[in-house]
């Protein structure tokens, strides 16, 4: 789920505007990748070890999105993300650590979109991840549990808070080939696995008061050092869960040399099939004015080999994350050949 590259504070963390010339948020810069490990197709992921951080790689994230429903049938969306960026190779105690952590949390209702952002230095305990027992945290936000299958998720912003329990109802899914996910025709890649089968219960607190919610969640784990080609400036990323129990992850990377699309089809039993480049297709149906930009908020998504032809529309058109690196991220409804819900992320729209 490479969408989440948002993070990359890297060298431009506090800069007012991302450097478009080097890809979104500097993700396409090669110099910064020097000295860092690069993903290899020969790597075999191992758990619980790989739930923890990989400081040899430049960037990494723990990314959870959830489609939830209240007692009155109202749909809600929740996002909890922890990004890790290394300014230099290695780890150290105290302020000397070159690791930087960034957290994003959001709660979306049909009318409102609330979000919050946190930044932290590594090495002092303000943020971090342990693999076993699993704990990921930044400030007071937490995703933690005895193991990866049962987690408690909390976050608090100025106008929202949530406290949710996650229980996995299916296996981990390795994206790409054995968790090696290719991102461009030049061979940029990342290590990538997901847990799309969380059953979620808990409380979502909004300015109007607490709401009991339940639904399903999708967690993505990805790490890399140079995930984008130099000409790639943004992406549209879809994680869709169908009523049939199947799931589809698909993305479109927009570049000067053309778009690169890829994805994974996940059967109800959790077995995953990587999609060939170009098999997954997504085309904008409607642009909307969001935060002063034109953003495609309705899409037609097709996957001919599965007989899939659906329309993806947002729960809330203004699901704008006005963070340091701004992007659109929010819950979506799926109608057409397959019905369901999911999350959509779009970056790099100026």
């Amino acid at each position: 789920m490479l969408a989440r590259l948002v993070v990359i504070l890297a060298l431009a963390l506090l800069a007012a505007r991302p450097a478009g010339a080097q890809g979104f948020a500097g993700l396409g810069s090669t110099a910064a990748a020097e000295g860092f490990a690069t993903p290899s197709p020969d790597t075999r992921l191992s758990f619980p070890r790989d739930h923890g951080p990989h400081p040899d790689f430049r960037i990494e994230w723990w990314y959870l999105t959830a489609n939830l429903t209240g007692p009155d049938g109202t749909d809600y969306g929740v996002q909890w993300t922890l990004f890790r960026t290394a300014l230099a190779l290695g780890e150290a105690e105290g302020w000397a650590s070159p690791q930087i952590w960034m957290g994003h949390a959001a709660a979306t209702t049909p009318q409102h979109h609330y979000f919050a952002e946190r930044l932290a230095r590594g090495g002092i305990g303000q943020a971090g991840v342990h693999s076993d027992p699993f704990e990921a945290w930044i400030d007071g936000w937490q995703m933690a549990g005895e193991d990866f299958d049962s987690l408690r998720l909390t976050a608090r912003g100025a106008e929202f808070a949530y406290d949710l329990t996650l229980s996995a109802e299916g296996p981990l899914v390795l994206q790409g080939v054995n968790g090696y996910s290719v991102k461009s025709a030049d061979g940029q890649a990342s290590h990538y696995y997901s847990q799309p089968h969380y059953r979620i219960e808990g409380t979502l607190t909004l300015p109007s008061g607490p709401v009991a919610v339940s639904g399903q969640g999708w967690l993505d784990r990805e790490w890399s050092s140079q995930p984008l080609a130099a000409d790639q400036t943004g992406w549209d990323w879809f994680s869709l869960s169908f009523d049939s129990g199947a799931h589809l992850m698909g993305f479109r990377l927009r570049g000067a040399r053309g778009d690169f699309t890829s994805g994974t089809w996940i059967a109800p039993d959790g077995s995953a099939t990587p999609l060939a480049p170009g098999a997954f297709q997504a085309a904008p149906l409607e642009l909307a004015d969001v935060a002063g930009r034109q953003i495609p908020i309705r899409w037609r998504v097709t996957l001919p080999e599965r007989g899939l032809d659906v329309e993806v529309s947002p729960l809330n058109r203004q699901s704008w994350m006005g963070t340091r690196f701004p992007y659109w991220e929010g819950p979506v409804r799926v109608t057409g050949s397959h019905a369901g819900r999911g999350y959509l992320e779009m970056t790099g729209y100026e």
Partner: protein
Amino acid sequence: MIGAALQALASHWRRHPLQLGTLLAGLALATALWSAVQAINAEARASYARAASQIGGATLDVLEAPGGPMSRARYVALRRAGWQLSPVLEGRTRLGEEQVTLLGLDPLTHPPLPAFEAAMQADQATLAQMLTQGGLLLASPELVSALKDVPGLPPLRASDSVPPGMVITDIGLAERLLARPDQIDRLLILPQQPMQLTPLDQLAPDLQRRASRAGADTARLTDSFHLNLTAFGLLSFAVGLFIVHGTVGLAFEQRRAMVRTLRALGLPVWLLAALMLAELLALALVGGLLGLGLGYLVAAALLPDVAATLRGLYGAPVAGGLSLRPSWIVGGLAMALIGTLAASAQALWRMLRMPLLAAPGLQAWAQRAAQGDRRMALAGLGLIAAGIAALALIKGLIGGFALIAGLMLGAALLLPPVLAALLGLGRHLTRGPLGEWLWADTRAQLPGIGLALMALLLALAANIGVGTMVSSFRLTFTGWLDQRLVSELYLTARDDAQGAEIARWLAPRSDAVLPIRAAEFTVQGNPVTVYGVVDHPTYRDNWPLLDRTPDAWAQVNAGQGVFINEQLARRADLWPGDVVQLAPGWVLPVAGVYSDYGNPTGQAITALPALLTHARAVPNRRFGVRIVPEAVPDLIEALRAKFDLPASALIDQAGLKSRSLAVFDKTFVVTGALNLLTLGVAGFAILTSLLTLWSLRLPQLAPVWALGLTRGRLARLELARSLLLATFTALLALPLGLALAWVLLAVINVQAFGWRLPMYLFPLDWLRLFLLALLAAGLAAALPARRLYRLPPSELLKVFANAR
């Protein structure tokens, strides 16, 4: 009619260009010194405000531990409880030859900071550089150029958004440079907090939340300094106004005949008054503008020294450059206008009430003024009494200055009656007509020259008072340095580990190695540096105690007592026998009070083990080394070679003393300059008085000349008369100056700095000043005397021909 009246009024100045010049010069001088001081104050205050905004978080509340710094773990625990906070570590340290304030921040959590934004704008890699290995120091361009050759410093980056004298850097690097690992001084409470937080008083009951005081500390410390400057400016202004008062009075007097003629021609008195007022205001405007230009030059010349003083003494960030502010221009002109009106009101009023047909006696002005002797004496005594009452009623700095104002103005008003009495006495003691005439004539001149003499009195008294204060201070300070700086060598290690290593190495090579270790605490809301000392005769034998309990040193060495410096003792009213709370659970009796002229803040001393129990991570980098003085150079060489220490890390006693004295002298450069300028203005006042009196006196001199006294003799007598008056004034200025010195030392210094200084007398300085006063008076009288000497006899004869 108006045009004709204006022409008539202007004709006076055409005929008396010198008078016009004097008036303008008086106005310009008064405005110049006043506005120079204002410009300096405004620039310094603007610097403080700019620094506060550049440091950022100026409006945010702050969380602090009362007993000194808190640990990093404490910060992280509060962050993990959800509170949005940003840590700050701040300290004074020496980089190369520069004493700087080092501000360590966490760039990721700190609210937007102009220095960061600007640096990031210029180079996007700034943040990465700041947070990784090498680090980055942001400083003003001046500081960067001063530091650029210091070896071993992290990379420097110049930024206009960093206050002068300050280095902003990442908190991790600040920990290393200040040798304060794992410490945080305060936490900024960020504006946006998440919902459902546990209140801070439950999470951290021992931490204190307080409103931001960015810049407030500087303002508190430097207030007295600025008040001092303002008082000086006001004094100069007053002296300048004496000139204006004298010349305006004379000009109006000389125009009596013209005024009468104009009114007889039908010019309404209100119109005449309005025209004269307009004339005065126009003159005030011109003089004020001249003064502003002059004041700007004076301020620009003095500001670098003021800035150096404020930085050195208080660590206050002041830039050396002066900028022109509209408010300053308006304020200076307003002051010139108000001053002119105040100085001319009397003359204008008298002119309006003058009966149309009154005899046009030129003497009227002078004689009437003489009648007021008794009233002036009473008013003078009243002012002095009011000043004393003000000090009793309004405690503090303002009261002290009120006393000075009362004393000075009162003494000035007393001067003419006292001089009159002295001259009267002289006349009784003299035989012969010429002597009697001389005394009587001098007495008759007194009203005309009295104001100038008052100015001289004030200037001389200020010189004696301030000079005595500064010299006493310097003498005390030098003696104190001798007592306080006992160790032969002072050294600063790079870090605690090296410090320990050096101490071990030095132990067999010196008589004693005395660690200098301190931590910050808060007493009654003010920061106090607490030093921990080891039990060694060096302290017992030399420490300058002002007051103590009988077994003071035993108490302190046992950790059962604390010495506090005089500033803290006076501010908090703590004396031997009282107890002081340094931290929660750490209460010690005050065993003694010591004098401390090195800084304006509070300080305390107790046993090192006691300090180490109550403070965390006290740095151990500074040491005093006792050794025979002859061995110091070799030891410095050996230390430098063995531990690779920079030159600035090793300072011998003599070096430290001369550096301290240099800072001290710098502090009073401005005072000295203003002092001299005031005396110059007073000398000028005498000159103008004598010059204006000159034309009035011809009718009085002519009969004496006609009786057979030569012009040369008359000229010499004129000169002697001036010297006589100056001598009397200078003699009277001495007690006034000493009284002023006493107020400065015993009242103003205690309020401004928190220490009371003993007063020493410097008769040689008085003698020099006395000669200077005679010189000024002599020079001022020389010009009119020379004119008299060269005056064609026909002019003197005309007096009889034109007998009015």
